[in-house]
């Protein structure tokens, strides 16, 4: 078989060189957090996108996008975040700015839209997102929202998320600021010693429910998840918690730090991906509360769940041992967890990339992976293609834009983003993950790739 991976001579954008590393070769720091290069086929999203994904799971809020229609259309119900009741957040609201608004300013139209929505839905909170254009035409979002809050006696909060003012991570930070505004209250804070907040789980496929169920079982109550199935009212209970646990530090690390400063709530970074990490995280939480009852219940739960799901994972491991995975996800923390989780499945991670990973996280990744693993910050399709093929990956874990690429290359794929099909958190999630990986890696469909017309693939 032809070993050439691609006839294209890969001349990379020189600026990109600093964003790619191979473990064992050059061990300088990776360049991350840089903006995409002009002319790059980048996978990176904007500030609005970051802010919206974090805030969207506030289910009883009106999410009003102030801008032209597109920004609202593309974010209509794409999050996959489940709600136990309210579903106002699954509607798309837009001020649909037109030419005359661009010329004369959009403030009046915005005010009219807020009025209409407030009168129709009486939401407890309205979040008003600004998009690029609003930043340029200079609408005073803050002033309009202040006026609207008074007029309708509800919280109308501006989300200053003009896309060009940074990247997705900046959007996360802005969303955290908004959340801080939402949890602030005039009332006295009711301190609850056995309550915590769960940060950085968006209840995709109902994942937060699984974790909240575990915690409840061992005697710990969850005040609110940031953000998944979150209601405005429950957000107000957040300041009374004894602890914040943080699943996705990329998006929520900032909120955890700020809540520690403001409310004195300590935080723990946790991960509920994979048996190992789930077990460890639960133990660390139980230890924090240092209550014998909680610790006992925690051990009982772990024992029961491991007995139920451990064998399932082991069974899949038999089919998956020795297969190679490539990981390209949003945050560095998730990448770290996935590397460990693949280890549980007997698989080796041969390429790791993230969109918003931070230096500490890249360092941790470097520690974890084997020699020769490629590590990259951001990535364009040609880079992903090159490294996946060069490294002989069997599977890619990624988001919506990577799925078709993997499939085109004849690689199996798992969505570990908004489009995940099953919950992947906790013990049951680890079993689901193993099953999903097995289902796609061992699918009969890959057999048909190696037909007579098939060319250019490295793996036999």
């Amino acid at each position, binding site marked *: 078989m032809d070993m050439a991976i691609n006839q294209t001579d890969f001349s990379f954008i020189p600026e990109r060189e600093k964003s790619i590393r191979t473990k064992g070769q050059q061990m300088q720091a990776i360049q991350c957090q840089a903006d995409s290069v002009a002319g790059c086929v980048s996978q990176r999203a904007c500030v609005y996108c970051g802010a919206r994904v974090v805030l969207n799971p506030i289910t009883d809020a009106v999410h009003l996008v102030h801008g032209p229609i*597109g920004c609202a259309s593309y974010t209509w119900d794409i999050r996959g975040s489940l709600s136990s009741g309210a579903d106002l957040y699954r509607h798309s609201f837009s001020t649909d700015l037109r030419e005359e608004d661009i010329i004369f300013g959009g403030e009046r139209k915005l005010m009219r839209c807020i009025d*209409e929505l407030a009168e129709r839905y009486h939401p407890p909170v309205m979040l008003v997102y600004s998009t*690029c254009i609003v930043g340029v035409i200079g609408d005073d979002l803050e002033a309009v929202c202040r006026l609207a809050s008074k007029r309708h006696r509800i919280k109308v909060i501006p989300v200053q998320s003009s896309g060009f003012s940074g990247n997705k991570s900046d959007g996360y930070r802005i969303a955290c600021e908004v959340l801080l505004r939402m949890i602030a209250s005039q009332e006295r804070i009711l301190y609850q010693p056995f309550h915590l907040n769960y940060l950085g789980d968006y209840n995709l496929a109902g994942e937060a429910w699984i974790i909240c169920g575990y915690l409840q079982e061992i005697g710990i109550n969850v005040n609110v998840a940031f953000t998944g199935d979150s209601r405005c009212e429950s957000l107000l209970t957040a300041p009374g918690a004894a602890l914040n646990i943080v699943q996705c530090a990329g998006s929520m690390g900032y909120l955890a730090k700020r809540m520690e400063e403001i409310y004195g709530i300590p935080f723990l970074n946790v991960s509920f991906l994979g048996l190992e990490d789930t077990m460890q995280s639960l133990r660390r939480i139980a230890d924090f509360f240092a209550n014998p009852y909680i610790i006992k219940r925690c051990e009982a739960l772990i024992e029961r769940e491991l007995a139920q799901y451990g064998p399932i994972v082991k069974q899949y491991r038999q089919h998956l041992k020795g297969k190679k995975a490539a990981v390209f996800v949003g945050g560095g923390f998730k990448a770290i967890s996935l590397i460990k989780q693949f280890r549980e499945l007997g698989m080796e991670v041969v390429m790791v990339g993230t969109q918003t990973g931070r230096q500490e996280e890249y360092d941790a990744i470097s520690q974890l992976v084997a020699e020769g693993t490629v590590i990259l910050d951001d990535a364009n399709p040609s880079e992903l293609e090159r490294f996946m093929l060069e490294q002989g990956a069997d599977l890619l874990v990624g988001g919506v834009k990577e799925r078709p690429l993997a499939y085109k290359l004849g690689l199996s794929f798992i969505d570990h983003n908004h489009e995940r099909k099953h919950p992947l958190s906790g013990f049951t999630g680890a079993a689901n993950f193993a099953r999903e990986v097995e289902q796609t890696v061992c699918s009969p469909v890959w057999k048909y790739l190696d037909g007579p017309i098939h060319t250019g693939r490295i793996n036999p």
Partner: protein
Amino acid sequence: MWDYTPPEIIPRNGIVINPAKTCQPIGAMYAALGVHRCLPHSHGSQGCCSYHRMHLSRHFRDPIAASTSSFTEGAAVFGGGANLKTALKNVFAIYNPDIIAVHTTCLSETIGDDIQVYINQAQVPPGKAVIYANTPSYVGSHVTGFSNMVKGMVKGLSVNNNHPNGKVNIIPGFVNPGDMREIKRMLKAMEVRFIMFPDTSGVLDAPLTGKYEMYPAGGTKIEELIDAGNSTVTLALGSFASEDAAQELRKKAKVRPLILRNPIGIRATDNFLMAVSRATGQEISAELEEERGQVIDVMVDLHDQYQDKKVAVFGDPDIVIALTSFLLELGMVPNYVLTGTPSEAFAKEVEQMLDEAGIKGRVKAGGDLFTLHQWIKEAPVDLLMGTSYGKYIAKAENIPLVRVGFPILDRGVHSYLPIVGYKGALRLIEMISNALLDKQDREAADEDFELIL
């Protein structure tokens, strides 16, 4: 769930709830992908580009490559000229397309970037081309963006150099690669020589080979786009997506334009094929006549299953107009017809069709799905036809949804198969009658449940 829609119509003064349209650049991006070895370039912030690629990726279930000028605060203040010039240089050097198709975004439009000037100042390697279109989303919709980019192809490339090529230009409109393939098949069956643009067949429905091709084999070639100026006539299918480019060809190269409806259903396909035949002198082949006869046969077999059923249709104007006409041919009652694209002509054209059929319906351009839902709450329909976004209404009101148009995000295969031509008509009839009968079977009381329908 989904009980936020009150039946009583309250006048609205600005707010759009659950849009039935999206923004211009995505249409421009889609059009550009129909040019061979073309990389669409989004001149704006990286976020827009990312959303547009993602959305197209979801509809076509294929990778979508496009580059961005990656605006930052500086560009937003000082203009995006430097970004665009660097971008063009980088894109040619690294991704090596034959042509780059630049479209703007709301942001670059608002700050007033002059794309033509920037392109003139940019270094374009010899033998390569750059075309562009202005695509502000605060005007029109994604269909407008598509139309603008197709026009941009003509503007940037087509020339009449007095060498008549005897060909027909076909502009297929904002349809799936499966439709474009079908149009080509019909033309080939008539042995017609043609230039079709854009043509996403072979690009967005390319086979899986185990290799990622940034530029798959399909797409209209640059030479063809240039040569389009020498053709005899341009058949523009759908006035919203295709007319502007046809008029531009008339202005620029004196190619006669002929504006037709998208060939959806019997009559529109007849008209299309007859127009082709008249323009070229080629006969409508026996093969196509046979296909037509098959559709009529099926319509006779099944008419009692769908006739007189009420239908709500929504989506892009060209498709909705053509579909409405087909539904009338089938004896169905399309009494709610809505597009998200703003337009005065749309309502006139549809209302006239409904009037002629004696149907009192509701028609709206620039509408949203909240409005459509309200209409349906007020007086229900039997069937809903439109994009995936119709599924909320379908679920809330227990109405079967036949998915047509863009985008379809929750089903596969749609982009490979046509709704145009006689083959497309067959497929639509199958989808419509199956949807109605599936519901009937599912809900039938035991004593009414029948094997033979």
